[in-house]
C-alpha cells in the first residue's frame, strides 16, 4: 500500500497486514472502547464501580435530558443549567479580557507601568481562583436584574481565573515584538498612536488569542468549582446535587456537558482568532 502516513504503514507492519480501518472507524472505536471499559468496571465491580452507574442508564438518561426532561425531580432542564453556567463563563471571561488585554499591553510596552503594576499582580497570580470565593461572598452585595439574581461572587471567581492567563500572555506577546517593526513604522511616518495600532496590536494578537483560549478553559474550571459551593442553577450545582441525591448518572451528565461546552467555546475562540488574523499561516 503506497498511500497512508508513515505511522499507518508502521502499524500495518506490526499488525501483519491486517486491513487498516478508516479514520472515522478508529475514532468510533475510541469512543465505544471508553464506554465499554466503563461498563466492564461497573459490571465486574472493579474498584467500587458497582456502586456507581452503568453507562447504559447514563446514556438513556442523557438522551432524556437532551429531550428536555428535568435532570432531578422537579428540577430544571440541562439547557437551563448550561445557559446559567455559560453566561457566567461569558460574563467573567469578557470582563477579564476587557481589563487584562489593555493592562497587559501597557505593562508589556512600558517599563514604568510594569514597575507599578506587575509586582502586585504577579504576587496574586499563584493564588487558586476558587480561594477568592469567601472574600467575594462577603464583599459583593446581592444583586438582581429584574427577577434574575446575579451571582457576583461566582462571576468574580471566573473573572480571576481567566484574568491571569490573558494578562500574562498579552504581556509576553507585547514584550517580544521585534523592535525593528516599530522603527520601520516610525521611519515611514507613523506616530506613537499609529505604531500602537499598526504594529503593537496586530503583533500581540496571536498571544492574546492564546491567552483567551486558556482563559476560557480556566473559566469553565472555575465556574464549576464556584457552583459546587454557591449553588445553582448551573452545571457545577447539578454535579454536586446529583451526588447528594445518589443519582450518579446526573453527575456524569453534568461532567459531560461541561466537557462538551468547554470544547465548543475553545473552538469559538480559535475561529475568532482565524477571523482576526487572516495572515496567520495556520
Amino acid at each position: 500500500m503506497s498511500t497512508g502516513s508513515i505511522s499507518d504503514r508502521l502499524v500495518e507492519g506490526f499488525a501483519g497486514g491486517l486491513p487498516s480501518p478508516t479514520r472515522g472507524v478508529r475514532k468510533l472505536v475510541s469512543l465505544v472502547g471508553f464506554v465499554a471499559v466503563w461498563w466492564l468496571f461497573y459490571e465486574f465491580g472493579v474498584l467500587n464501580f458497582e456502586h456507581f452507574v452503568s453507562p447504559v442508564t447514563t446514556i438513556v438518561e442523557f438522551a432524556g435530558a437532551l429531550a428536555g426532561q428535568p435532570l432531578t425531580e422537579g428540577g430544571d432542564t440541562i439547557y437551563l443549567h448550561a445557559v446559567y453556567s455559560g453566561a457566567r463563563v461569558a460574563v467573567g471571561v469578557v470582563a477579564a479580557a476587557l481589563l487584562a488585554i489593555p493592562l497587559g499591553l501597557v505593562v508589556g510596552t512600558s517599563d514604568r507601568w510594569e514597575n507599578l503594576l506587575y509586582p502586585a499582580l504577579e504576587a496574586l497570580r499563584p493564588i487558586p481562583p476558587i480561594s477568592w470565593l469567601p472574600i467575594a461572598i462577603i464583599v459583593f452585595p446581592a444583586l438582581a436584574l429584574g427577577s434574575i439574581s446575579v451571582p457576583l461572587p461566582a462571576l468574580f471567581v471566573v473573572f480571576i481565573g481567566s484574568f491571569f492567563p490573558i494578562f500574562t500572555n498579552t504581556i509576553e506577546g507585547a514584550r517580544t515584538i521585534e523592535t525593528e517593526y516599530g522603527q520601520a513604522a516610525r521611519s515611514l511616518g507613523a506616530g506613537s498612536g499609529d505604531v500602537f495600532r499598526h504594529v503593537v496590536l496586530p503583533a500581540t494578537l496571536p498571544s492574546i488569542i492564546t491567552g483567551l483560549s486558556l482563559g476560557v478553559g480556566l473559566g469553565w474550571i472555575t465556574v464549576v468549582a464556584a457552583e459546587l459551593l454557591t449553588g445553582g442553577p448551573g452545571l457545577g450545582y447539578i454535579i454536586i446535587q446529583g451526588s447528594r441525591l445518589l443519582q450518579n448518572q446526573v453527575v456524569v451528565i453534568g461532567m459531560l456537558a461541561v466537557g462538551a461546552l468547554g470544547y465548543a467555546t475553545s473552538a469559538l475562540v480559535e475561529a475568532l482568532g482565524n477571523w482576526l488574523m487572516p495572515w496567520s499561516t495556520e
Partner: protein
Amino acid sequence: MSEHNTDTTTRSDTDEQSAEQRRSWTESSGSGTVNIQDLTKVYGDDGDELVAVDGMDLHIEAEEFVTVLGPSGCGKSTVMECIAGYLDPTEGEVLVNDEPVEGPDPSRGVVFQENRLFPWKTISENVRFGPQMRDDVDESRVASLFDQMGLSGFEDAYPHELSGGMQQRAELARLLANDPDIMLMDEPFSGLDAMTKELMQEKLLDVWEDDDRTVLFITHDVEEAILLADRVVVMTARPGQVKDVIDVDLERPRSTDIVTTDRFNELQRRASESIHDEAERAMEQAEGRV
C-alpha cells in the same frame, strides 16, 4: 521636494569635479546631505562600556551613493541607526540637510537586514503604509511601483506567501512609496541567494539612477560595495572609525557585468587590502583575544 530640480543640475556639475572637491563642499544644503561630525556612541554603563563608534567623521553629498564596508561588529549599523534617528549619539552629531537629527522621519527611509514588511498586512497595505500615515496615497504611483518591482498580482498576498527576492522588492517599494530623500540600507541583500542578490543590486541601481536620492548602503561584501557606490567608506574594527575612502570612478549606468573589468578588480583589490587587517582584528575581538 522643490529643491530636487536644483539638485539634479548640481549633480551633473559635481560629476565633472574631482571627488576631493566634492567632499569639501560641506556648506551644501541640498536635500539629502548627511554630515557625521565626530560621532561617538558608547553602549552600556560605567565599568561595562562598549565603544561602538569613536569620533567618526563623514560627509555624504545629496544624491550620492555611499557604501560603508566594515568587518562585523565594527559599529556600521550603529552609525546607520544614528542617522535614522533610532539612537542618540553619545558625543558629536549627525546633521541631515544641516539640521541635527531628532528621531525618525519619513524623509529618511530604512531597509533592515532582515525583511521587516509587516507580516499582518498585505503587500498592498505595506506599500501604502507610509503615504497612508499622511493621508496622501497616490494610487497611480502605487500602481507604477507594483509594476516596476514586479509585484503586480500580489497586492493581496501576505509577506510570508512571497519568495525572499519578492519580499525584498516589496520592502523597497514600501520605501519608495514614501519618496524619501535618503535611503539607509543595512545589509539588505545579505540573506538572499547569489542570483537573487545580483538581480536586487541591479534593481537598486535602476531605482537610484531614476530618482534623485542619497543612499547609504552598509555591507560586508567588497564586490557589492564597489559595484553600487560612488564612494566606498572602509571602517576600522571596533571602535569604528573611517579608515579609508575609495572613490569608485566606474562609469554609470552600471550593470553587474562590470565586475569582470580590470578597473573593477583593481578597486576591489584595494578595498580588500584595506579591510583585511580590520577583519582580522574584528575576528580577534569576537574570539575574545583583545
